[in-house]
């Protein structure tokens, strides 16, 4: 404001026009005061700026506040000052008009409004942008927190699966003992009808317990690893009798009719994974019985043209057609909504059927019962050499007595294997850990080494590896409670010739020993 610019010269007419134009826009008010802020003179309309024309003192008072602390002999410009009536004015102090000073007010309302509108938009945009940045930062933080939680959950899930797998795995060793001793009892002294009945009940329920443990294991290894198939010759009539014994009393308790039967229309003995077949049937029949309140459950097996056809039909609550796909998903809400159960069984059934190269179909309508139809091809065509299982335990013939070194830390299992192997004609030595196994096998090499993988200290696989490294050339059979392809691969890579999974029975053991000690 203090700079002076050279003013161009215009004609009197133009200058008059400009002066009139600016005058009309600015509506100037000039107030002249003496040195004591007494109004001496006034030009313009004081009401335009909110001053009372009849009360000059009030105007003086208000303007005095505005110049508080400032020198009154200077020229001071105060743009956009809020006036008493709300209008905006440029206020100029014009000092040096002896003996007092002048105050010039120019209306700035129009300019004020334009600037205010412009700044308002800018300021609001900046405030919103700040809030947006803050919200984005918060979202990032939330996302990173969610990611951390997801990782924690994934870790917890892996731990849970490992726990389930461990529990299920730990079931196998005691079940091996139970099955083994049941077999011993079956084959020993003649028994009364009531003892035979009791043994049958024990076997049935042990099987059921084993199926439950297998369900858990199947669930735990859902994601990646496919489990190993164990094809054996299956006695379907015996299986059907077992299932009847298991479910007939349960169905009778609920007032349901329960029928189960098998038709054998192919002369060849079925070769299937018996454990998985049993799991499929137990799961399907248990579900049918659970969800049927009246009527009955019918199970029909037919062995024909190298395939086993299974039909499980019930007169239960049924499943709406639009939910047919969902029932095969783990923890689905269809089954949960229907009452009990976590909805795990059918997902496992589907997985097992797929593993066994079979197919499954569901026919059901809400309120009209359900029928599951499964076809399982014989595994004889899928897997070249079944691991074991014959109607009768094969007798081992040999010109000399073969020796077996059993390496297991479970005394019950050791005793059982000792009994079975002695029955099969072997000379048996037993040690409880890997170190002793290596020492004993090198000192007096056995024909067959039967070693448990899960040993205290060094694992059975380590013992096998060391023995092979030191030149042991006998046959090695590894025994483990872990039924996975990976575990099998590890054992065979270590130097084992065969890999058996618990629980084993004498038929499986006999077949393995036969393979280990071929006739000369």
């Amino acid at each position, binding site marked *: 404001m203090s700079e002076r610019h050279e003013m161009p010269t215009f004609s009197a007419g133009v200058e008059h026009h400009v002066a009139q134009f600016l005058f009309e826009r600015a509506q100037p008010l000039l107030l002249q005061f003496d040195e004591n802020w007494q109004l001496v003179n006034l030009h313009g309309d004081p009401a335009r700026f909110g001053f009372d024309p009849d009360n000059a003192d009030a105007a003086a008072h208000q303007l005095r506040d505005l110049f*508080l*602390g400032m020198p009154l002999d200077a020229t*001071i410009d105060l743009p956009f000052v809020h006036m008493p009536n709300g209008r905006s004015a440029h206020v100029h102090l014009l000092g040096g008009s002896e003996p007092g000073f002048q105050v010039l007010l120019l209306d700035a309302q129009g300019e004020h409004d334009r600037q205010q509108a412009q700044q308002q938009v800018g300021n609001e945009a900046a405030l919103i942008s700040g809030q947006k940045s803050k919200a984005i930062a918060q979202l990032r933080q939330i996302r990173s927190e969610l990611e951390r939680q997801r990782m924690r959950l994934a870790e917890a899930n892996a731990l849970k699966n490992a726990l389930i797998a461990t529990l299920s795995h730990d079931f196998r060793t005691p079940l091996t003992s139970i099955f083994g001793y049941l077999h011993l009892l079956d084959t020993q002294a003649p028994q009364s009808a009531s003892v035979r009945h009791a043994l049958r009940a024990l076997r049935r329920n042990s099987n059921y317990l084993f199926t439950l443990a297998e369900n858990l294991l199947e669930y735990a290894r859902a994601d990646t690893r496919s489990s190993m198939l164990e094809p054996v010759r299956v006695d379907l009539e015996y299986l059907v009798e077992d299932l009847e014994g298991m479910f007939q009393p349960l169905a009778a308790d609920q007032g349901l009719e329960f029928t189960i039967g098998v038709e054998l229309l192919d002369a060849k003995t079925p070769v299937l994974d018996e454990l998985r077949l049993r799991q499929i049937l137990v799961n399907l029949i248990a579900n049918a019985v659970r969800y049927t309140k009246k009527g009955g459950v019918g199970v029909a097996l037919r062995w024909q043209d190298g395939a086993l056809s299974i039909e499980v039909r019930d007169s239960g609550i049924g499943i709406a057609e639009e939910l047919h796909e969902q029932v095969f998903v783990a923890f689905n809400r269809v089954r949960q909504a229907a009452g009990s159960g976590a909805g795990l069984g059918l997902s496992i059934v589907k997985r097992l059927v797929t593993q066994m190269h079979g197919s499954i179909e569901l026919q059901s309508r809400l309120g009209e019962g359900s029928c599951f139809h499964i076809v399982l091809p014989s595994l004889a065509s899928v897997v070249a050499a079944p691991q074991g299982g014959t109607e009768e335990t094969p007798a081992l013939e040999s010109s000399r007595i073969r020796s077996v070194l059993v390496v297991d830390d479970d005394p019950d299992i050791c005793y059982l294997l000792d009994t079975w192997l002695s029955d099969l004609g072997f000379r048996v030595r037993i040690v409880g850990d890997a170190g002793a196994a290596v020492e004993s096998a090198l000192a007096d090499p056995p024909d067959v080494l039967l070693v448990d993988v899960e040993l205290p200290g060094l694992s059975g696989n380590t013992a096998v590896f060391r023995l092979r490294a030191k030149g042991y050339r006998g046959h090695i059979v590894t025994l483990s409670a872990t039924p996975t392809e990976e575990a099998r691969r590890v054992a065979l890579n270590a130097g084992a010739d065969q890999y058996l999974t618990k629980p084993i029975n004498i038929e499986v053991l006999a077949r393995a020993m036969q393979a280990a000690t071929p006739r000369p």
Partner: protein
Amino acid sequence: MTAPARKICMLGDFGVGKTSLVARYMRNTFSDTYLTTVGVKVDSKEVDLGELGMLKLVVWDIAGRSVLDALNMSYLRGASGLLLVADGTREASLRTAIDLLLQSRSVLEDAEAVLIVNKLDLVERWEVGPSTLAGLRQTMPVIETSALSGDGVEQAFLELAKRLAR
């Protein structure tokens, strides 16, 4: 007898609540509609400071800026006190308030200053931490306020008034 008058200026970034604080202090009113200030609004109020007597506060509510240009400097002339205003929910506005204080020192060497951290009603969204304020209290009075509820507003103006009356 006329009370002595002192000019005080409200300084702070836009949107921190300077106009709302003045409205709450002068007229005990509040509007939650944000309207940017262009130029300056001048209000005055006499306060009774007890033993220190009466004092007339002439309050200049100056348009919010992050830096003081020549225009703002002209508004500061003759001021005895500064009310620096920051918004507790915007940490950057606290830095601006401190910057404005430092810039104002070129024309107001001896002005008393009180720091107001406004929007106490939104304290759960504050970015300004208590430890920051504790550090600032070592150098100047710091008062947390809410123009919305009125908390701390009277106290802040009185604190500055007392310092000006001494």
